[in-house]
């Protein structure tokens, strides 16, 4: 089963801090990670949206993170071992018709794409993949912590959204961490509420949402705004051309 995500993790972390214990688990260290993983030390995540006018700081536990997104080749191995996730067998509740749309057959990704990020995968399939390896999808807090690095001063015009698809946090700049230019699934992608205009809650459709979903901490952070908007538009069964994923594990 998946491990606890955002809500309880947040509560427990806050309680732990209040009690003056454990900023990080004593045995959490880079040595806990495997060769193709990057160690992300404990840190703090500042959610893009304010809560009741307040900027929040959420402690994030240390994790071992896959250095890059899952490839076609890796996903092929997964569907071989778990036939229920093959494109001809997957149930419609768990993936829309475009699931693995670029695979001609159940076990035949295009040979030239084998080392490229697998996309056209649903949240359910991505989660099942990670779980089969004893890992899980990163939470939004974890993802933004390791991949929400500063926007470049000049954005390349040939890849207009690449800047929003992930940039290493400064302290991970010299690691093997890679962002191959796809959006990435998160465990709690369905937590962000974006409606109406950025930087204000005017114009929010109040019949749709309860709570203050649209007050940005930093309205100039366009990349973060794009990510939160994108996530809030997703459904768990979506399988999109530019949406892949990577897995994480608790560092222990």
């Amino acid at each position, binding site marked *: 089963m998946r491990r606890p995500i955002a809500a309880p993790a947040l509560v427990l972390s806050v309680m732990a801090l209040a009690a003056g214990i454990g900023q990080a688990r004593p045995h959490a260290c880079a040595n806990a990670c495997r060769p193709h993983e990057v160690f992300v030390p404990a840190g703090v995540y500042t959610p893009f949206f304010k809560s009741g006018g307040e900027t929040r700081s959420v402690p994030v536990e240390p994790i071992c993170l896959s250095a890059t997104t899952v490839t076609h080749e890796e996903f092929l191995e997964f569907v071989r071992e778990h036939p229920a996730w093959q494109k001809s067998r997957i149930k419609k509740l768990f993936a829309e018709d475009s699931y693995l749309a670029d695979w001609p057959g159940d076990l035949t990704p295009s040979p030239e794409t084998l080392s490229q990020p697998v996309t056209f995968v649903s949240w359910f399939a991505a989660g099942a993949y990670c779980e089969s390896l004893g890992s899980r999808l990163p939470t939004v807090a974890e993802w933004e912590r390791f991949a929400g690095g500063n926007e470049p001063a000049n954005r390349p015009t040939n890849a207009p959204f690449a800047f929003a698809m992930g940039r290493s946090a400064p302290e991970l700049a010299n690691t093997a961490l890679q962002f191959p230019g796809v959006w990435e699934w998160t465990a709690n992608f369905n937590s962000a509420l974006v409606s109406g205009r950025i930087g204000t809650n005017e114009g929010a459709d109040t019949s749709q949402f309860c709570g203050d*979903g649209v007050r940005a901490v930093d309205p100039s952070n366009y990349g973060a705004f794009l990510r939160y908007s994108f996530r809030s538009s997703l459904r768990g069964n979506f399988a999109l051309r530019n949406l892949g994923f990577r897995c994480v594990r608790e560092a222990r």
Partner: protein
Amino acid sequence: MNRAFKGIAFPLLAAVTLTTQVSSEPSERSVYQLVSKWIEDNGRGLRLATLEGNMQLLALIYTTCEGSCPITVKSMQMFSRNLPADILGRIRFLLVTVDPENDTLAVLRKYRRDMKLDRQWKLLRGSADDVRELAAVLGFNYEQIESGQFAHSNLVTVLDERGEIVHQQNDFASDAKPVIEAIRNQQSGR
């Protein structure tokens, strides 16, 4: 997530054992393929598949919500008490808490008493992961913004007898007619 995975095996098994009752196995689009375990406020365990046979009007709520949840639940209640004769007895009501941390069974029981919810209503509590998975299936977004408070969608969902989503809307409190229409359409389609 392996619950979702196991859920895929079940319909295959069911197809073998229930060949004469094809319509009662979870269909490919049925939410009842989720094999997560839930607990009712009365302490009984529940799998979603056991809800088969009745249509359900489903909302995700939490009991300390001060904004829209009470309005949604009150609207559902008004709706339940004023059902047109032709759909009376065809729909049940399902509330699932997004705050299992605070909404213990005792809290849910008190909520049932306070809101005067009768036996047509089920109140469910599950693990944080299972709530997140159900929400993903429904397209319901929520996030804890401070202890005990959530930002969340105001979505109500109509499930048909097999657990397929047949209607969803965000403004149920202001207009219940589309839900009645959805229920009638299901009946006429049978």
